[in-house]
């Protein structure tokens, strides 16, 4: 009987070992909006992410106020008028990555499915992108559109420059295994 308990405990510790946790070491989210007056582009280097290579679960946290714009007033308007970042300080993604094989190296196509929360509004999304297993590192790349309307982001009518109804988001993440 003691032996069976011992086996059971082994499984427990094995389950813990198999949970391969990865954390972002460098992460960048960029968005691009093509508008008639001028193109608007901003990037964010304060993004963090966690990935479990075994189960495929994936989570990202994007602090909105960390987006950097080439023009400082644009940054202020982005935070105050569009994203209301004092009220909704972060955007998040939580979901599962499927269609990838962790044993293969090289570029693979994968699909992330889950909940994307921007401006306090959560939507189910499917994002397809690339995953690269490169030594100790996992690299993820994706380009996907976000509709402002889907997240109830309003464009103030009075603004002289107009943001496109749909912005293009580029995400680049480099993960490394969490060392215990």
């Amino acid at each position, binding site marked *: 009987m003691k032996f069976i*308990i011992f086996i059971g405990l082994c499984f427990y510790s094995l389950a813990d070992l198999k949970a391969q946790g990865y954390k972002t070491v460098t992460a960048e989210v960029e968005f691009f909006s093509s508008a008639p007056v001028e193109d608007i582009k901003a990037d964010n280097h304060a993004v*963090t992410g966690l990935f479990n290579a075994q189960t495929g679960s994936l989570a990202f946290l994007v602090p909105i106020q960390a987006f950097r714009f080439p023009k400082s007033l644009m940054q*202020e308007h982005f935070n105050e008028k569009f994203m209301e970042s004092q009220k909704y300080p972060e955007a998040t993604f939580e979901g599962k990555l499927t269609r990838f094989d962790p044993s293969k190296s090289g570029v693979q196509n994968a699909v992330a499915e889950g909940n994307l929360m921007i401006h306090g509004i959560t939507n189910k999304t499917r994002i397809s992108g690339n995953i690269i297993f490169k030594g100790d590192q996992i690299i993820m790349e994706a380009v996907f559109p976000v509709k402002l309307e889907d997240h109830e982001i309003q464009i103030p009518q009075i603004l002289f420059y107009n943001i496109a109804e749909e912005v293009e988001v580029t995400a680049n993440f480099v993960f490394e295994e969490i060392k215990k």
Partner: protein
Amino acid sequence: MMDRFLIISLLITLPFIPARGQENLLDQLKTENVTEWKSPNSTFKAIRLINGHTVETRNKGNLEFLISHRFGRINSGAYQFFGMDQANMRLGLDYSVEDWLTLGIGRNSFNKRYDGFAKVSLYRQGKGKIRLPFSVVWLSNMSIHTIRRPEMPMNLQRRLNYAHQILIASRINQMASLQLMPTYIHRNLVREREENNGLFALGVGISHKITQSLHFNVEYYHRFSQPNNEYMHPISIGVDIETGGHVFQLHLTNAQEMTETGFIPSTTGVFFSGDIHFGFNITRNFQLKKTK
């Protein structure tokens, strides 16, 4: 018996371990990211409240062009088209040399006055190690009026005026901002013998959000250490309309001048008897240097 219970419980809980791990990922990130973003993006919409400055300064490399008008008195009647026939204006340029330093120049048609100032942002609300709930800006302004006064032997010294201010402002919440402006003015030449050259004043400013792009403002300066004379405390109300890059400010004020050395010591209009000037400021922002 106890052993069997242990095994069963182990086997039952085993499949849930990875599942539990997956659900916690986002919470885990949230607990790791305890970065607080307490500092407001802006305290006021524009770099001027109405006549005077706000604590707002633009970031390095921003040039702001200001066009300001004050029309005549509204109670001057239909013949003067309620003041619209007379106008005095100020053209100004504010340039942010550094994030913390803004230099500005201006030309006023009233008294043909030139003004120049240095505006130093000492502390931003919620920034740095000690997080204070207000911003502090130091402003020093000098002006020279070049209007010809043949009745007086005028020299350069007599034409100079100085204003020094500490602007203390707090963005109280999403809706409202409050500003206090302790001010010292020195005029090298005053109109009457009994008047002091130095003058202390305390200003109060309020800005309240109406809609996302529309704010309501009040500005009042209370003058101290002055004997009874004809001069009034400048009081102004107005709105800011922000359009991204431009701010349109429309206001009603009893002051005619648009620089501290002018409107604080020598406002003559009695606001509540209708000596009110309609006016506007238009600011246009140009970013000359990219950030990063």
